[in-house]
């Protein structure tokens, strides 16, 4: 069995009376794109800062590449890349100079560094903007520069903390494709984001945390299986009597049904072909209906059911 690339056990971090991380556990395998989901203040950034030894913690152990992570674990840090949530570049340096500076913190060999910087510039598609200063770049280009600064030295493990915040859809797609490409090249990625669809599309495994605790972890499918909701059916109906609504509620696998005057919404738990059963009932009752939808639960539904709140609460 391979050793996890990140192993966190019973991590406790307190800010005076506030417990930011409460016996937090986490394990990230090599080659994964691991998503860390949680509402604001849930402890995502604190976790990353503890892993990177930017913050001291009160209790627990953190092992990266099988070794204990300490502030002076420079050999471990050499293999880690960090893309911070806030763009951290130097306004007085050009795009090329910025990437070269941050890469220079890891790579001393000038020739190798030049090669890496040129590759990073090409990777984030900033070739045409190499001599531009950050203030002249759009939000999307700036984010790409921020990413290039964090990954130019070809790290084995990359932390991406909300890298697509305030980015236009076109740039976002490029960033996501880039992350997948980095993963294909062999990098393990720890990704935090507010955008559920991004996490769902990108991550091979996801951990949901709230109030400093790990609530659930697994693949998207595993997480979806953890919740009660398995299918959401929506049907446009002109009229529905209360007794008919009660009858629908009593159908097999249906655990909740509501009618708001024109749309019938049914939540099912388990089972297959639930839509067929509902439509059969409607037909038998002689009810005419319009558009019909059947959706599987999204990651947002998983998050909502597990934490009891929206991600942006």
């Amino acid at each position, binding site marked *: 069995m391979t050793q996890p690339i990140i192993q966190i056990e019973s991590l406790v971090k307190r800010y005076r009376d506030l417990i930011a991380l409460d016996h937090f556990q986490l394990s990230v395998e090599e080659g994964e794109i691991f998503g860390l989901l949680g509402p604001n203040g849930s402890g995502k950034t604190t976790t990353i800062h503890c892993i*990177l030894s*930017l913050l001291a913690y009160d209790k627990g152990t953190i092992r990266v590449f099988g070794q204990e992570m300490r502030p002076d674990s420079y050999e471990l840090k050499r293999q*880690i890349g960090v893309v911070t949530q806030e763009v951290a570049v130097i306004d*007085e*340096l050009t795009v090329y100079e910025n990437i070269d*500076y941050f890469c220079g913190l*890891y790579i001393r060999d000038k020739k190798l560094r030049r090669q890496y910087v040129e590759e990073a510039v090409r990777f984030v598609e900033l070739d045409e903007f190499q001599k531009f200063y950050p203030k002249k770049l759009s939000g999307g280009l700036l984010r790409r520069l921020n990413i290039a*600064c*964090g990954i130019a030295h070809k790290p084995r493990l990359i932390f991406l903390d909300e890298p697509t915040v305030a980015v236009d859809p076109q740039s976002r797609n490029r960033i996501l494709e880039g992350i997948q490409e980095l993963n294909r090249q062999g990098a393990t990625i720890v990704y935090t984001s507010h955008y559920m669809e991004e996490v769902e599309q990108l991550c091979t495994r996801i951990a949901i945390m709230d109030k400093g605790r790990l609530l659930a972890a697994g693949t998207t499918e595993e997480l979806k299986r953890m919740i009660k909701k398995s299918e959401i059916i929506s049907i446009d109906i002109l009229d529905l009597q209360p007794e008919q609504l009660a009858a629908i509620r009593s159908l097999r696998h249906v655990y909740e049904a509501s009618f708001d005057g024109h749309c019938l919404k049914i939540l099912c738990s388990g089972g297959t072909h639930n839509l067929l059963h509902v439509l059969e009932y409607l037909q038998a009752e002689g009810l005419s209906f319009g558009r019909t939808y059947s959706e599987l639960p999204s990651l947002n539904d998983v998050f909502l059911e597990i934490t009891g709140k929206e991600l942006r609460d």
Partner: protein
Amino acid sequence: MPVFNVFIKILRKHGSVTLLYLSIYVLLVVFFVMADENGGSAADMFQDKALALHITDEDQSSVSLALTDYLASIHDVSTQTVERGEILDGLYYRTLNYVLTIPDGFEASLLAHDAEGLLTFAALPGTSSELYVNRQISLYLDTLRRFLDCGYSLSESLERTGDALASLPDAETVSFCSANALSGGLLEPFFRYQPYILISVLICGLTPVLITLNGTRIRTRTACSPFPAGRHTLALLGGSLFYGLGLFLICMLLCFLFSPEGIRQPVVWQALLNSFVFLLFSAVLAVLVSLLITDSNVLNMVANSIGLVMSFLCGVFVPQSLLPDAVLRAGRFLPAYWYIHATDLLAGRGDEVYDAGSYWTCIGIQLLFAAALSVVTFAASCRRRKGS
């Protein structure tokens, strides 16, 4: 070396500000020296001068005639009887500077020790002629009285008074400062305005680099890398030192450009040491400002506020001898006061006579200021790191 290299790179991008300040500084120094030369030195401004005097002698006594002769030995004196209107016209058109009337019975009154206020005079108000001639008349009459009081006869007293005043020694202005004082030429203004320039250049040139490289985001990103935080701090210190020493070197070059012979004068080296100590204080101040302010756009305002307040309170622009006591009392709590005090000692300006002890006291106090500010800066740095 990546941090040091990027420090120098960013410094170069802010180099225009440093050059601008230094150019304005050089131009100002040259301008002030030229203005000073047109105004003339203090010694040139206060020289004996023959004025146009008219004396109306109603007494015609031996004393009045002797006084007239004495004044005629210094000034251009006319004694012809003229109309009052003509005298007033003369004063108005400045063909006459002073008009003296010696009343009848003046000699008798003088011998009776009752001549106070008997002489009447007229001069243009607001001119120094009145004071100048009055002082000469008083000197003559006081000397005469002393001889009379000593028991000499009137004729003997007049003769001795004439001799005494004729043989007065030539007065010479003596400066008690060191022989090679900075006064005169470009050096004195060059050193005098340095506090303002050093503070401005360091805050506008060095602080933005420190704000950039010491900013929380860049610091955090650096802390994620294998580059040790201690080496990052050392690189910033090294860069600041490089900038400070470079600035001091430019000051030295300018100093010897303004006064090539200064390289052999100990007083110039003392003034340079004084500048260097003040530069140390200014550099620490620039570092402190970089810890307290995160927006580079307000640095000009901060530099001007600190520089101007310090300059006006400590006598950079206005000589300390002209500043009110209350201002000087406040100024003592600022290092620029002691910098200017040392410069005044070296230039032979101000009330105090130069002595090495006073000079080194000024240097020591400035060093203490720099040390105290270093402690505050260190505390601010620790507090900021803890906060972030």
